[in-house]
C-alpha cells in the first residue's frame, strides 16, 4: 500500500534562509502523526509543501503516491487541510461554509445537503447553523473547520495547530474527533505546542532549525531521553541554535 506521506530530502529556501532542510520521513496510512518543533522550525512551511501549496526548492515528496511537484490537483482531492490561522470564511454562515467547501470538492447537491445536516447535528450546531462563523467561539470554529476539512472524506488530513488557544475541555473534544477519524482509517498529520497532545500520537517527529532531529513513538522517545513526559523530551531537544 502507498505511504500516506513519503519525503526524501525535502527542502525549502527563502532567499539564503533554509526554512525546511532536507527532511526525510514516511507516514503510514491510518497513523496519527505528530509533527512537533519549536517556533520557526519549519513545520508550516513543510506542511504547505506537502499540501501542494508551496513549491519545494529541492528534494521530493509524495502524498498518497502523488508527486508534490506535478500532481497537486490529485493531492488536493485526497487531503484535507486546516491552516494554522484559520480556514473558514468568517462572513459566511456555518451551513454556507460547509456547502462552499463541499462544492470545491465537487460533491453533488444532495450529498452536500446531507453532509451539512450531518456535521451540524454531530457538532450540535443546530442553533447557530445560520449564524456567521465570525460570531462563534474559537473552539466551535476549530471543530467545524476540522469537519469541513473532512467533508470530501480525504485519506489524509493536515492539521496545523488546530487546538492553539482552545480551552481544556474543547481541546479534548477536538482530540475525540481526531481519534474517531483515525479509527475510520484517516491519516492524521498534526502539529501542536501542547505536549500532552504529543502523547496521543502514534509517532511524533521533532523539528529543530529546519531539520527532523528525532522521530519515534512517544514511549520510545521518553525512554531514550530518560524522562517521563513528552514535555521533558521537547525541553531537551527543541532548542536549536539560530531559530527561536
Amino acid at each position, binding site marked *: 500500500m502507498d505511504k500516506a506521506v513519503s519525503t526524501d530530502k525535502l527542502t525549502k529556501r*527563502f532567499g539564503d534562509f533554509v526554512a525546511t532542510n532536507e527532511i526525510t520521513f514516511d507516514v503510514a496510512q491510518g497513523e496519527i502523526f505528530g509533527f512537533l*518543533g*519549536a*517556533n*520557526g*522550525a519549519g513545520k*508550516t512551511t513543510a506542511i504547505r509543501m506537502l499540501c501542494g501549496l508551496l513549491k519545494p526548492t529541492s528534494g521530493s515528496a509524495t502524498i498518497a503516491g502523488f508527486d508534490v511537484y506535478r500532481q497537486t490537483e490529485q493531492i488536493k482531492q485526497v487531503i484535507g487541510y486546516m491552516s*494554522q*490561522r484559520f480556514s473558514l470564511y468568517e462572513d459566511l454562515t456555518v451551513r454556507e461554509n460547509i456547502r462552499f467547501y463541499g462544492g470545491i470538492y465537487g460533491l453533488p447537491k444532495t450529498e452536500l445537503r446531507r453532509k451539512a445536516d450531518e456535521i451540524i447535528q454531530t457538532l450540535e450546531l443546530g442553533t447557530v447553523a445560520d449564524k456567521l462563523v465570525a460570531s462563534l*467561539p*474559537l*473552539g466551535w470554529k476549530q471543530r467545524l473547520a476540522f469537519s469541513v476539512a473532512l467533508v470530501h472524506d480525504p485519506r489524509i488530513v493536515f492539521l496545523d*495547530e488546530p487546538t*492553539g*488557544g*482552545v*480551552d*481544556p*475541555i*474543547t*481541546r*479534548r473534544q477536538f*482530540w*475525540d474527533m481526531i*481519534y474517531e477519524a*483515525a*479509527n475510520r482509517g484517516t491519516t492524521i498529520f498534526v502539529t501542536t*505546542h*501542547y*505536549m*500532552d497532545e504529543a*502523547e*496521543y500520537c502514534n509517532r511524533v517527529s521533532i523539528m529543530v532549525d529546519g531539520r527532523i532531529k528525532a522521530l519515534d513513538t*512517544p514511549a520510545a522517545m521518553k525512554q531514550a531521553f530518560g524522562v517521563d*513526559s*513528552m*514535555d521533558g523530551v*521537547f*525541553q531537551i531537544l*527543541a*532548542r536549536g541554535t*539560530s531559530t*527561536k
Partner: protein
Amino acid sequence: MMDAIQIEQVSKAFADTQAVSDVSLTIQAGELFGLIGPDGAGKTTLFKILVTLLRPDQGKAVVNGLDVVRDFRKLRPLIGYMPGRFSLYPDLSVEENLSFFATVFGTTIAANYELIRDIYGQLEPFKNRRAGALSGGMKQKLALCCALIHKPDVLFLDEPTTGVDAVSRKEFWEMLHRLNERGLTILVSTPYMDEAGQCDRIALMQTGRILAVDTPGGVENLFQKPLFAVKARDTYRLIQDLRAAPFTETCYAFGEYLHLTTRPSVTAGTIHGYLTGKQHEFVDIKPIKAGIEDSFMALMQDHG
C-alpha cells in the same frame, strides 16, 4: 499594599451578548494574576476595558489609581497591552515594528533594551525580516516586546503564549517572573493550565462572570470527587469503555493517562474489574490528587 487594579461591578454588552456581567475584582500592586476561561468567556472584553479601549456599560474600573474612562489619557503610558490577536504591522520589519512602538511612547529601543533582552535576543537574527513572514510563535514574541518597550507599570497580556512552543513558553514565564519581581503588576490570560499554576492568584471566568478567585492551590482544593489516572494498551477503546461505565462521571485524556472522575466510593479495584471484563490489557490505575486543569474543567462543566 496598594491596589493596582480595582474592578467594581463592571458590565459590558454587545448587540445580543452580555460579554461581561457584573464583574468585581481587585488585583494588588506587584501581583502576577491569571485570568482563565474558555473562548468567549469575556476575558478579552475585560482586558479592553482595563486598557481604555472600551467603555464599560456599567460599573467602574481603576488602574494605578486612575479611572479607565475619565483618566484614560494619563493612564495609557503607564500600561502595556498585548492583544490576543495579532497586533503588528506585517509590512514593517521586526526592528521597525519595535521602534515604532518605542517612538509612540517617546522612548527608544536602546533605553529599555534590558527589559526585552531575553526574548528579543531570539528575534534579533531576523530583525530585518518582515513581521508578516515570521512564524506564528515568533510573532507572539515580537508582540510582547512591543508591549514592554515603554516600560509600563502594569502589563496586560491576553493569551501571550498561544502558539508559542513549549521551550519558549517556559522561558517566557521565567521572564514574566523576573519582570514581576521588579515590581511590575501583570494580568495575564492563558489557555495553558500549567501557566495558571504559576500565578499568585487566578480568576476563572465563564459566560461573562467570575466563577472563582483563588490561589492555584485553593483552586485545586475545590475539586472534591474521586479521581483516577488510568492507562491501558488501547487508548481509544479505553476512553469509549470508561465513558460508558456505570461509575463514570467524566473521562478525559491527560497526556499518557486518562483522568477518570467517578461517583463517590468507587475504588481502583472496581475499575480494574470492569476493564479486565472488557478484555483490556496492561491496565494501570492509580488514585491521584486533582491538578488545576482537572479542577478548572470540573468548574466549567458544573456551570456549563
